[in-house]
């Protein structure tokens, strides 16, 4: 008697718990679907290969063991242009400390990118994602977006919007190998 009652309570608890978990999960995923990219902090950064203006290939896997400051940008995007000189200065500081800077332009012409890098005197490699496939793999929506990738190849932080030079320095410090 007491046993069947006990069983019934367990049964009811299990059924309600399963339903509540399913519903909460559904609501949570659909609520966060649009705002958070498919990639999130802690995920492995997907490898890619893109060609820079000199025809050189750059793969994320080339920088294994280093931190990678991965910046997505476009020449028409004003906040992108504004943070570029600061990024370039910090690149010079951190390149020997094991932090690589890589700027990915979204599907613009070689001409525009070349003129831009000349104008700002950028020294870090700038690659162009002609088919937007890397943009798609990283689910980039607003520009600029910056991914901090740690020496283990995991995404440490995702920054959307403009950064100050202080921000950039702190972020690079964060992903510098020990």
């Amino acid at each position, binding site marked *: 008697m007491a046993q069947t009652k006990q069983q019934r309570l367990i049964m009811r608890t299990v059924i309600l718990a399963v339903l509540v978990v399913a519903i909460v999960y*559904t609501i949570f995923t659909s609520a966060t679907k649009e705002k958070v990219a498919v990639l999130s902090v802690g995920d492995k950064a997907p490898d890619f290969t893109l060609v820079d203006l000199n025809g050189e290939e750059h793969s994320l896997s080339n920088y294994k063991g280093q931190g990678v400051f991965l910046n997505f940008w476009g020449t028409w995007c004003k906040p992108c242009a504004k943070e570029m000189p600061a990024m370039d200065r910090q690149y010079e500081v951190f390149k020997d400390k094991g932090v690589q800077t890589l700027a990915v332009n979204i599907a613009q012409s070689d001409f525009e990118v070349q003129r831009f890098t000349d104008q700002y005197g950028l020294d870090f490699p700038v690659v162009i994602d002609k088919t937007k496939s890397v943009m798609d793999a990283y689910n980039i929506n607003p520009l600029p977006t910056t991914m901090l990738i740690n020496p283990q190849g995991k995404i440490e932080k995702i920054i959307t919007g403009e950064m100050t030079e202080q921000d950039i320095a702190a972020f690079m410090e964060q992903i510098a190998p020990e």
Partner: protein
Amino acid sequence: MNKILCTCGHENPKGTVLCGSCGRPLTEEASNQKLVDMRYEGSARRSQTFNKSIIDKVWNFFSSVKVGVSLIVIILVAAAIGTILPQVFYVPATGEAEIAAYYERVYGTFGKLYYQLGLSDLYGSWWFQTLIGMLGISLIVASLDRVIPLYKSLKKQRTRRHESFMKRQRIFGIGENALGENTFAKSEEKLKSLGYNVKREDGAVLGEKARFSRWGPYINHLGLIIFLFGVMLRALPGFYVDETMWLREGETRAIPETPGYYLKSDEFILETYDKEKADEVFNDAIERVGTIASNYQTDVVLYKKPEDALPGQTDKLEEVKKDSIQVNEPLKFEGFAVYQMDFRLDELRSMQFNLSNKATGESLGDVSVDLVEPEMSYDLGNGNKVELLGYYPDFTGFENGEPQTQSPIPNNPAFLVKMTTPETPKGETSFVAIKQTVEPFGENKYKLEFNNVETRDVSGLTIRKDKTLWVLALGGLIFMIGVAQGSYWNHRRIWIHETKDGHIAVAAHTNKNWLSVKKDLDQVTLVANLPPYIDQHDLEALEEKKDGEKSS
């Protein structure tokens, strides 16, 4: 301790109204009724019996039909309110702040509240989803709470019921046994020929037909639950994709959300009905409207990157197939479908300029600038050269003397150029935009004049994948089976037995369509000489009517 022991010896769970075995009324209330309430066979609905822990209370809440109906009403009202103002995806604004501002600007305080309450994205709002989830729980709990006791009591039912049960059935008759032992044999035979399942005991017959129709509502609920489960799956990765992409003629682009697929547009085609060729009946319409589109089409090539290639490596793409995407005829691959949804005609692709001497008008040659991949410099021969210093695809004006572009799309291209000729070896700088030429460093001898453009079309495509469709279809099918089961079949039972004093008692019950069960019983009565029956429901109604007349 909580069991009710019936005089027939059957143990019933607490809360039982009619004994599960013999049908004796077990409560005071039931014994005082003329007719018994046959819902759920008088079995104990579990929710009403245990009400101890929190879990039990929650369970009981969801088990209530009133709660279920209230949830449905609330959901309907919310959905109705959701139609008052347009939903977010119809609003010409992107980004949260912009959308919020739009609702407030256009619809005032009501619009602001509407947005804040999540009514502007009803299906996406957490509280609406919570309501749907609660409805799902209600469906499951309420069904379990009813179907299990009902199943048990129908399974356990005895052939011989207690007289008090028989007497309280709506259709009941008692009288002489005209045929003696033969009554039961003949009844059994006739009931069988009418399609009844017959159980026979000493001096008692039970004919039962279409018991499965009692499960109709529960099967129907099961279908709904499967349907809701399918909708839930859409939130999980890999089950549902609904993306859009713009693809220009000649462009190759990664298809969003697909595993390494790329799409190249060869051509976008817009065809209209031709008055000459179309059937004569359409002429009026064509004349009235002007042009009527007959075809929207994008000719595409589908590529897949090799297994080992990384995103960005597009030099080794493998062609999968060529296809023409038309409205309702999507490109299909690996569970994905790419639909023709939208288009933009005549986006600038390249611009032709002519270099000429301003004074003499002498032409030194043409320059064609590819707006997708402009070159650094263009050699016109004979020492004439045009160098591109800057390209501003969507020129909006100058800021601190610097030309600005607001997007990477060539909506309003502008160029900063340096023209070099044997006469002007140092070069002359000019800013060339559509209908605008600026010579920043003084009067030039040569000019670059806009000549001609080439354009291309842009296709708006939608990428869909829906692995939940078959779940939704299955849910819908089961739902309909449940509806049919409960509507087109009726659960009928006819009891015939001998009373202690040698009379014959008959009773019948059905969950709907009483006329038919009476017809069945009439046929059995004829064959087995059963006593005549009365419909006590009619009797009750008649009495009520009389009472009403008296009091008035």
